[in-house]
């Protein structure tokens, strides 16, 4: 199983971060939400590997609130 790369991988981190924030300029909260959703979908498709995506999702949730356990039938 491929694993999520959490080592530094972005060549120009400050440029990237600024571009990310700038992409949201002048957007309402709701519009930003939509942009983020589209961005996630585009990137997810680029990555393609569902295992990697699931690791990223779990890591993103980490520290916010424990993931709900699947309710057994």
């Amino acid at each position, binding site marked *: 199983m491929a694993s999520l790369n959490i080592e530094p991988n972005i060549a120009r981190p400050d440029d990237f971060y600024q571009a990310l924030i700038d992409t949201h300029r002048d957007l309402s909260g709701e519009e930003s*939400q*939509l942009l983020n*959703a*589209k961005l*996630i*979908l*585009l990137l997810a*498709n680029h990555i393609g590997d569902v295992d990697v995506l699931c690791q990223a999702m779990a890591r993103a949730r980490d520290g916010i609130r424990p993931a709900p356990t699947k309710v057994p*039938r």
Partner: protein
Amino acid sequence: MDIDYQQLRLDYVRAAEQDAAAPAHYPVIVVGAGPVGLAAAIDLARQGVRTLLLDDDDRLSFGSRAICFAKRTLEIFDRLGCGERMVHKGISWNVGKVFFQDELVYSFNLLPETGHRRPAFINLQQYYVEGYLYERARELDGLALRWKNRVVAVAADADGVEVTVETPDGPYRVRGDYLLACDGARSPVRHLLGLSSSGQSFRDRFLIADVKMKADFPTERWFWFDPPFHRHQSVLLHAQPDNVWRIDFQLGWDADPEAEKQPERVTPRIQALLGHDAEFSYEWVSVYTFACLRMEHFRHGRVLFAGDAAHGVSPFGARGANSGVQDADNLVWKLRLVLAGLAPASLLDSYDSERVYAADENILNSTRSTDFITPKSEISRTFRDAVLLLAREHPFARRLVNSGRLSVPAVLRDSVLNTPDQDAFAGAMVPGAPAADAPVRAGGAPGWFLDHVGDDFTGVLFSDGTALAPEVAAALDHLGHAAIPIRPRVVVPAGTAPRLPHDLVALEDVEGKLAQRFDACPGSYYLLRPDQHVCARWRRFDADRAQAAVARATGNA
């Protein structure tokens, strides 16, 4: 002229045994003459099991119910002897289109290849399906059909089941070795036995209108998200026979179901879709909510549950009646073998495990579609809208659009009845898969592969068209006469017509599609169950292995 099956009244006839001192006995009693109970009773009677079918009503389906009947269900109806009528009357379709606002974002073809007898779907009102099944049922000896016979009590013990039936002439009792509960979503039998069905209901309401009109929409499934004529909600449009169209408007949870049914509310919605000068009349208008439910187990000793009684899904995906008919298809041959003393009663546990698996697959698909159509949270709606926006230009996003994943049969990959592969095969015909169809010629007559398999176990030997080795022919013939016979079929390449000994049937693979779909080469041998599912396959025929596989598939191993 077609019979108006919605108006048909099925007369109650007093049965002589209602006066008998001791209850009459039937091997199988089926409760409920919906599509599932009718299909099960027909199949049982066809296979020689004397069956009593009881229904509490005196009419067939009415109102807006199932319209989409899937390829696999049609193949089962073919086996039952009434598929052709359904397809002849129904509207065949393979293509679905999804629109977002005023643009087409996604189009899918559910059967992109030729060489299948049946289309991906027909649309046919449930009352026609039940009407044709009913007429098929009436042709069968060994099937007693009783209307206005309501099951009001069930007592099951180790030897059988006794039911009390309420009729216009008062109650009577009848006994069965097995009871098949096909009594619908509210299943009185389930309640009488103190059992339950649980799951999730969806907080949304749908206005379903069947309208009669002349229209020239193509015979495709059209689904709109947020169209200009019904903002922020979805709409589904489907053609049915007799110029009837099904239009399904999402209303949201807060809609008032009573008010929304009134013509003064419905008409403007339909006019917004069709134009203000559109002429139409109403067949039925109702407001529905949906749930996904299932019983924990479908077998409870001598009582077996099938169809909506056992499980329920939302209709996006057309998985309700379709999966119920597939329940019947799975169960009947097992019951027949158990009743004949050729298989242990534990074979019926495989009905439970296989169809619970199928129900879970249907529920999963149906729940995912419903979550896409009716997002449960703000963020879920945001992602849904993001998918639809991206889908206009991005092929990857079109595949995420979910307006219903339409009914396909479950592949029973992990079934205990399968003999695991030892030889390497490619393609879809894994143990557990329902056999693919293909055109064949038998005795010079063109036909279809699936017409030549099923009811019994079938052994399909692929040959190169030269004469069979005498010991192979003799072994195939021998298996055909076993206590649980394996009917032999020899597939030969197009243009070859070898004379086969022992009256073995040769199927000419006229387009080569059969060998291709089964990834077969000369010598490959497939064992199919009576319900046409693959249960074992080898690169080389071996009679002992075939017999062992039948033993395994019948719980005799």
